């Protein structure tokens, strides 16, 4: 990311990080998103410190207990309990670990592979490009959730298989995006100039062209992070992702579905947790776009 600005030798130029923060912090939503994300991250990492109960501890005396601020609530169970008397707040706190981990793994896998393949396709063109794009078309011909469902049918339900499937279907977006930006940039004067100046293929690909394609890629990466969380939760909801009694948010929703009228809070909070986490990441993504896209900066 530091490649966006030139190395700050002269005085008076802010450092790349300071400049980044200057533009990022102008977007209030992004700062709020970052703050929420950091809170969720800390809570997830230090889950045993924050959770008032164990996520699997069942209290037979307190089944489907209402949240503490409602009549009949118990202050020791802030968000109430589920059908087998487990503390919902504690399960949500532990659930944050799963969601963030899923997002991280999926984004890392799909960004690295997608950008490499996209650069190659866009830069070399010709037959390489055709073969790569046809393979991407094949993957993109399946809806992500459907492919994940089918993979799960083959490999058996579980988080790992869900993550593999979600990475696989996210990757073509990065390939397409990188390729499209490379195609747009490849013929521009600064790239031609760099070529004339004698720069090698690797240098042109990674140092000349890639930084100018970073804006949309970073936005796509944050979107992929949140999409991965959503897809994994959806699989959990369908009973094909993390399996009970794992406190994964989507799985919790699936377990809570039958109490939809009797105990709406059991349904409300896991979904709210997904929404807030995904929203925070997407807010950050918008801020990153504003801070990293040179075109938007000047306008």
């Amino acid at each position, binding site marked *: 990311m530091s490649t966006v600005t030139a190395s700050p030798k002269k005085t008076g130029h802010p450092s790349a990080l300071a400049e980044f923060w200057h533009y990022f912090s102008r977007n209030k939503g992004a700062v709020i998103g970052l703050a929420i994300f950091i809170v969720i991250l800390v809570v997830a990492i230090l889950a045993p410190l924050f959770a008032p109960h164990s996520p699997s501890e069942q209290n037979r005396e307190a089944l489907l207990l209402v949240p503490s601020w409602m009549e009949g609530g118990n202050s020791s169970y802030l968000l109430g309990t589920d059908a087998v008397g487990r503390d919902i707040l504690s399960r949500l706190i532990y659930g944050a670990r799963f969601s963030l981990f899923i997002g991280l793994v999926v984004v890392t896998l799909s960004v690295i592979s997608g950008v490499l393949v996209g650069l190659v396709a866009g830069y070399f063109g010709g037959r390489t490009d055709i073969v790569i794009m046809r393979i991407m078309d*094949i993957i993109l011909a399946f809806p*992500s959730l459907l492919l994940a469902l089918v993979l799960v049918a083959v490999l058996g339900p579980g988080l790992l298989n869900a993550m593999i499937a979600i990475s696989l279907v996210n990757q073509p977006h990065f390939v397409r995006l990188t390729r499209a930006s490379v195609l747009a940039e490849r013929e521009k004067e600064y790239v031609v100039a760099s070529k004339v100046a004698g720069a090698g293929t690797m240098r042109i690909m990674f140092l000349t062209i890639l930084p100018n394609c970073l804006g949309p890629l970073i936005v796509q990466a944050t979107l992929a992070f949140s999409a991965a969380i959503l897809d994994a939760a959806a699989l959990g909801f369908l009973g094909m992702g993390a399996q009970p009694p794992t406190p994964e948010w989507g799985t919790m*929703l699936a377990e809570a579905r039958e109490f939809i009228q009797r105990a709406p809070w059991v349904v409300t909070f896991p979904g709210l947790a997904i929404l807030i986490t995904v929203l925070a990441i997407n807010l950050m993504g918008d801020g990153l776009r504003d801070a990293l896209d040179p075109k938007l900066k000047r306008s």
Partner: protein
Amino acid sequence: MLRFLLGRLAILIPTFLGVSLIAFSFIRMLPGDPVMLMSGERVMSEERHAAIMHDLGLDRPMPVQYLNYLTDVLSGDLGTSIVTKRPVLGEFLSLFPATLELSLCAIILAVVLGVPAGVFAAVKRGTWFDQSIMGVALVGYSMPIFWWGLLLIIFFSGYLQWTPVSGRISLMYFFPPVTGFMLIDSLLSGQPGAFRSAFSYLILPTIVLGTIPLAVIARQTRSAMLEVLGEDYVRTARSKGLSPLRVVGVHALRNALIPVITTIGLQVGVLLAGAILTETIFSWPGIGKWMVDAVFKRDYAVVQGGLLLIAGVIMLVNLAVDITYGFINPRIRH
């Protein structure tokens, strides 16, 4: 233009072969004996096993098996459901209109609300109007739709009792399907109240399925418009003294729509993935629910056939998007 069309069609063939190869390998990747899986029987004699194996062609070499599979697929034979014993293609065709109707309503909702919202947000950039539209769009984009559906059911179906919870039309009405679209069929049936009933069943699923495309289209339209509004030709159009409406509506929007159309095309995959969740929540009898049920019932013939058919639908829509793209942006044709 003809060359462009033929080129696009030529691209479709290898993609289709790749997709069919994936659907073909799926059954063979499953753990367990394919004969038992495909016949749905647990216990069988050795002779019966060999007979079924021969019938299914599983005793032949892999490439021959694939060619046979491809020939069957191209002649419309996608196998028989293990559970219902009905042809997979027939089941798909009888359920697809329900998904199509829901998806069309969802995408219409998304385009009709999303494009104007994005254009206005871009024109009024930085105002409270822009910020609130984009705030709502971001919440919509971040929405876990299966939860959103449950919330809508709790509120509109449970608390207010305005809308029904599941199905396509009240059981009071019965008429033979003509188009397969409940909204049209209910009108054709001439039964009083039938259309109203079909509409009330459709409204919540449409909102749930349309939420994410709506948010994506609004956001994409706004950012495409912002980009285009900074271009020289927009400034030229303004300085020529054209009305702001003409500058925004004709000069800017036409070019801004190019990436938006790609986005709308990409939403088809999102819609079909969303249909899996939406149809499950609302018991909507379409192909999304059909596939989920097939996975749960281990009806692998349906999963295999459905995989190929759904991918085929998405490929055809992408082709249509590519062609539209060529019409709007002549540069792409070459």
